[in-house]
């Protein structure tokens, strides 16, 4: 498509999304009020109002809002492309995602029928009152969750990814031996080290990184309140004291009164209704975050965020560019009638085992529940959803798995071969790290440095690179092992690793 036409379409799309938003009305109000000022003249009204908005910082806020829209925007549509093509262009992947979703939904429905727990029911008044009182200490509740089990675990999802095949792919000949070494059999385009070196040039061994070279100059980027500048800055890591503000700036997660009100509405929803997925969330938090040395203190925060997240219908918007489709349940007797369809859970996301680990590291940065909630929601609809849906996107979990395998095969072929000899597939060891973006495996300060780069480069690729770098670091030990159990033991504890030196050495010091 012509570039000029594409640009005007993009602009029209963004204007449509921002028109009528709270920011729009705020800027209009500011523009009206500035007319009182003596330096705003009628002859040059337009320019004077514009320069007022610039100096008072409102233009910057608008720029940040536009920048945020660019991140989640759909590519301009060729007229014949149907909406599902924008979610995922490859037909066989859409089919695989649809059948995976059916399985998950079936599991949820059978749990509901077996345990005789309805998908949703209204809480009795006494229970509502109790919950309101205990809102800040839900962790003290010890409900009986033994009957509940997670809907699926990452390893179930891995089996689906391994089984993906392109029906048009010719695998009759051994045309690509490498693809038969690894588990992922889908020919996606993933970047190798020379391309990665170009793309991640800020991570070069010669540039200072936060956390290693802390005498690096600190730019007063936060003062300027510019999302794009903050994102660029974050590529070399954020200083601990500024990280919370920088991340909120990059994600444009401003904690405006309407955001606080939205959170309060969600909280009211939690108190009124009890959903089956609430029990899944409780179970997940108890099994994962509560058992973790770093995150058990934040148990209450996790409930406050995740229970509200399940009820937030604003999350449904991200399904336009997510290959997944939210599960729908129909009013009895009216299956198929779209008007009687209700998305379940209201945000369309069914939590799986380990889901709460996406939120846990953020608790170190934000202690105000509505701010924490906003930042988490924005991070989910930009990055985390790609880690548990089948898609051909370069940041999707499938591309990350393939990239990990390819990097290992290309640069550590002996290690890969040795592991295959003893019956170990490296992806089975690394998958659980990548699905959680290393949350719960690295120590928190290192994890936050990794997530700095995810935000800075707007891509999850760095997660795959780190996984390969960890294998490279422990290669000597792994070459000695002779069984799956001992390989797992070598890679069991990552809490002592320093993330940035590993990535830097792997990308820039590997012999080509």
């Amino acid at each position: 498509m012509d570039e000029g036409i594409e640009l005007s379409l993009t602009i029209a799309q963004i204007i449509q999304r921002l028109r009528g938003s709270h920011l729009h009305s705020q800027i209009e109000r500011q523009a009206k009020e500035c007319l009182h000022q003596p330096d705003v003249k009628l002859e040059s009204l337009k320019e004077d109002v514009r320069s007022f908005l610039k100096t008072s910082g409102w233009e910057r806020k608008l720029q940040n809002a536009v920048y945020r829209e660019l991140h989640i925007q759909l590519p301009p549509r060729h007229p014949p492309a149907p909406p599902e093509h924008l979610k995922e262009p490859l037909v066989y992947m859409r089919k695989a995602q649809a059948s995976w979703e059916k399985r998950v939904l079936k599991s949820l429905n059978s749990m509901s029928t077996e345990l005789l727990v309805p998908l949703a029911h209204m809480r009795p008044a006494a229970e509502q009152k109790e919950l309101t009182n205990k809102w800040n200490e839900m962790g003290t509740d010890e409900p009986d969750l033994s009957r509940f089990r997670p809907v699926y675990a990452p390893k179930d999802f891995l089996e689906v990814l391994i089984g993906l095949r392109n029906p048009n792919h010719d695998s009759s000949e051994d045309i690509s031996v490498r693809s038969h070494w690894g588990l992922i059999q889908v020919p996606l385009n993933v970047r190798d080290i020379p391309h990665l070196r170009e793309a991640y040039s800020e991570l070069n061994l010669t540039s200072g990184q936060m956390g290693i070279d802390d005498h690096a100059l600190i730019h007063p980027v936060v003062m300027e309140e510019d999302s794009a500048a903050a994102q660029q800055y974050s590529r070399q890591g954020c200083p601990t004291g500024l990280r919370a503000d920088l991340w909120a700036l990059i994600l444009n997660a401003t904690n405006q009164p309407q955001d606080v009100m939205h959170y309060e509405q969600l909280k009211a929803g939690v108190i009124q209704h009890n959903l089956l997925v609430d029990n899944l969330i409780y179970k997940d938090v108890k099994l994962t975050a509560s058992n973790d040395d770093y995150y058990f203190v934040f148990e209450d925060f996790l409930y406050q965020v995740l229970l509200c997240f399940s009820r937030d219908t604003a999350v449904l918007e991200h399904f336009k560019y997510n290959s997944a489709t939210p599960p729908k349940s129909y009013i009895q007797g009216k299956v198929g009638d779209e008007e009687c369809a209700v998305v379940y859970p209201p945000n369309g996301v069914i939590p799986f085992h380990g889901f709460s680990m996406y939120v846990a590291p953020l608790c170190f940065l934000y202690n105000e529940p509505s701010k924490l909630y906003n930042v988490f929601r924005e991070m989910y609809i930009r990055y985390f959803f790609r880690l548990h849906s089948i898609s051909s996107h370069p940041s999707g979990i499938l591309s990350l798995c393939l990239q990990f395998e390819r990097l290992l095969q290309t640069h550590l072929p002996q290690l890969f071969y040795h592991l295959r000899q003893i019956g170990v597939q490296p992806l089975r060891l690394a998958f659980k790290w990548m699905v959680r973006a290393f949350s719960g495996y690295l120590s928190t300060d290192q994890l936050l440095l990794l997530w700095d780069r995810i935000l800075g480069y707007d891509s999850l690729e760095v997660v795959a690179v780190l996984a390969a770098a960890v294998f490279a670091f422990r290669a000597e030990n792994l070459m000695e092992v002779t069984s799956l159990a001992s390989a797992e033991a070598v890679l069991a504890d990552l809490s002592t690793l320093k993330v940035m030196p590993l990535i830097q050495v792997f990308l820039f010091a590997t012999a080509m």
Partner: protein
Amino acid sequence: MSGTPDDTKPVNFTVKAPVYLQIGDAKADTAHSGVCVVDVNLPFGKPVNIEEVTFKNYYTAYVTVRLLRRNPEQEAPAKWCTAVRDLPLMDNPHTEGGSQDYYTIHRTQMQVEPDHVVCARLILRQPSLAWLTFSLEDIKIFPHTEPDPEKEVSDWLSDLTLTDQHPDLEGLPDPQTVSSSIQQMWALTEVMQTNQTTASIGRFDVSETHSQPHLSCNECVHDGGDVITF
């Protein structure tokens, strides 16, 4: 965009079955040469001026479009020309990027003017052995439509509307300065409204009880103005 495909309908044409070129004996092992030719026969006797060609890709790496054009004025035979040569549809022929995407080739992207086209030939290439088959689906050709003649009428109408002419303002102040000073006065009244005091301005009391035939201030006051008393 002139002639947007939203309102124009694609041209009806017949697409012949794609012919995959073989190397050597047709009956022997089908060694795919990676080249396929799709002929598009436009309706006989009605040459088309092409606006754009849209299609959905299915694992084709490069496409070349050749057009058979017949100039209606000259009696010369129709000639083949290349409109687009080796347009890449997939970033990497071995991987999935772009393999099932929708594409549009607009007439501005073509090397020749796609007018009076009788027949089009799409030459598809897929050099990679990774794929079992490759083709293009849903090929549509949209004709070039001339801009609406109605637009010419509106041009003519706009000539009739009076252009903004500055009226003769001899002796009168410049309207721009007047309006800007009005703006300042308005701002002043706004300020005054917010700073209203209860102290009164000294004026004569106009009371209805005056019965003496003085020059009644009623007349001058009731002239639309407010009564100010102390």
